[in-house]
């Protein structure tokens, strides 16, 4: 395993990666300490100054129910992060296990799982998520399941490829020779060596998950209406685009910045974990 010192040093070497790390840190702090950072209660209505323009009292102005946009954005970070991480976990775990089994045992198991994955890959992710979301009904948990399940095929395909290539390595053969059981070989040898591509896929998918939450709420399927989430704020704000464009623009900008940060961080991570590139970093 890389020594910790070099891990940080490499991370900081490219300033874009540094910037993305800072952004992600901000995003996580906002999400975790949301209640402390918010100037107002994101749900408190204040009808008189509905759609108020940005002012000192309300840094980013108010939304169509007079709620302070700044605090909704901060609380929204929490929802988006929650949804992104949980759907990554759902998709990641399911996808990795299925990919591992398909790659390791091959034969019928592999064909069945891979054909199912091809089929789910033939349907665009947004449509798959929409179908599952509508089937389960509109709730935060269902949204996470919808996004998670629709991202499973990507993990399966990545993990299967990784398992097939690792399986033919000599150290896996030697594990068999020593007498390890199949399951031990899988979780002790193949899985640890697939961690780096898994992390990279996860970070990049994290961005995808946040965007999926936004798109689904745009199609009317997001989290319950009162819970501030960036995607819902963009889609609700869309109605008042001419009178108060900031309603959509700001949350949209936040989504883009966070997803951009995760993507750049993901790229940096991949270069760092790839021994060939590490030298020239």
């Amino acid at each position, binding site marked *: 395993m890389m020594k910790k010192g070099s891990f940080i040093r490499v991370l900081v070497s490219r300033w*874009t990666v540094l910037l993305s790390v800072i952004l992600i840190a901000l995003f996580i702090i906002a999400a975790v300490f949301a209640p402390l950072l918010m100037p107002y209660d994101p749900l408190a209505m204040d009808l008189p100054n509905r759609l108020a323009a940005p002012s000192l009292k309300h840094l980013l102005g108010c939304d169509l129910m007079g709620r302070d946009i700044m605090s909704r954005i901060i609380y929204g970070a929490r929802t988006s992060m929650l949804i992104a991480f949980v759907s990554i976990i759902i998709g990641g775990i399911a996808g990795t296990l299925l990919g591992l089994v398909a790659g390791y045992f091959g034969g019928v198991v592999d064909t069945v799982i891979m*054909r*199912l994955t*091809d*089929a*789910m*890959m*033939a*349907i*665009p*992710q*947004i*449509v*798959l998520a*929409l*179908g*599952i979301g*509508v*089937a389960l*009904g509109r709730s935060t948990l269902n949204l996470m399941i919808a996004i998670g399940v629709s991202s499973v095929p990507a993990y399966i395909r990545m993990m299967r490829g990784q398992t097939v290539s690792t399986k033919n390595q000599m150290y896996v053969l030697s594990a068999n020779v020593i007498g390890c059981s199949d399951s031990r070989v899988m979780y002790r040898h193949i899985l640890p060596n697939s961690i780096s591509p898994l992390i990279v896929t996860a970070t990049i998918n994290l*961005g995808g998950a946040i*965007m999926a939450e*936004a*798109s689904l709420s*745009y*199609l*009317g399927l997001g989290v319950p209406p009162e819970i501030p989430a960036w*995607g819902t704020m*963009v*889609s609700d704000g*869309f109605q008042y*685009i*001419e009178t108060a*464009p900031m309603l*959509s*623009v700001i949350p*949209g900008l936040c*989504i*883009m*910045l966070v*997803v*951009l940060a995760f*993507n*750049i961080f993901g*790229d940096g991570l991949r270069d760092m974990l790839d021994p*060939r590139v590490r030298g020239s970093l």
Partner: protein
Amino acid sequence: MTQYIVKKIFQALLVLLIVTFISYLIMELIPGDAVDFLLGLEATPEKAAALRASLNLDKPFIVRYFMWLGGLFRGDMGTSIFYNDSVTNILVKKLLVTFRMGFAALIISTVVGITLGVVSAVNRGGFWDNLISFFANIGISIPAFWLGILFIILFAVKMKVLPVQGYTDPSADFWLHTKQMVMPVIVTAVGALSSMVRQTRSAVLETISQDYVRTAREKGLRERAILIKHVLRNALIPILTLLGMQIRVLFGGVVIVENIFAIPGMGRLLVNSVFNRDITVVQGCILIMGIVVIIANLLVDVSYGFVDPRIREIKDVA
């Protein structure tokens, strides 16, 4: 080679079958059906039951699926519950709209994507590489509908350069059609273009580090000749794989964009049909999408054969 193609076709058909089953299953799980919705406030249980029987919605799920499948083989995709019209002629018009837009976005994202990808890979670490990579990163991070909103505000509302909404048939008024198509096509293409740039770049970088490129350099060929004759021909294989995936990304983008720009394409029809519980139309849309994605992957697999001689005579050695 033909045996390789036949194998791929057979596999594609199997996958297509699974696709239709998955979509039928999901639609079945969704609570509520078109009939309740259709009759609205005046509905009475008897009326609802009568209508449901006439559309044989009362039969079990599996029976209905195989009836639909049977119809499919006879070339009839069933009738839409909601529009009580045959799915085929509803889809035909909408299909054309989505294909026209999707195809334009595909061309842009592929051509521009590959060129920028190669340019940024060739002078790795240089100014162009950083600039292109940066914008490619932004490209994949922008949510499509937010970009759409920005475009509407900027070009349609503020600058009034482009029309806000709608879709006119090119035969009717070509100039208005193109003006209306500008924003949606760009918004769809941005995501696909950026991921194309990033993946082309990594494919070309991977190929540049191969031994035979060193041999080519050792032979004293000029850098440009090496790039075209050796690097690009080998990088073509991963890029082709990528092309197969692009179709899926584009369809996802189209679904969102059609809803923003009010384009009566297949994407919007699909979303509405899901909400209207119009199962046959949803099946039709997903079938078409599945067919297109699978055909695209098939073309990619077949083109492997032409690009990579190793795949031509596949011998299955156990």
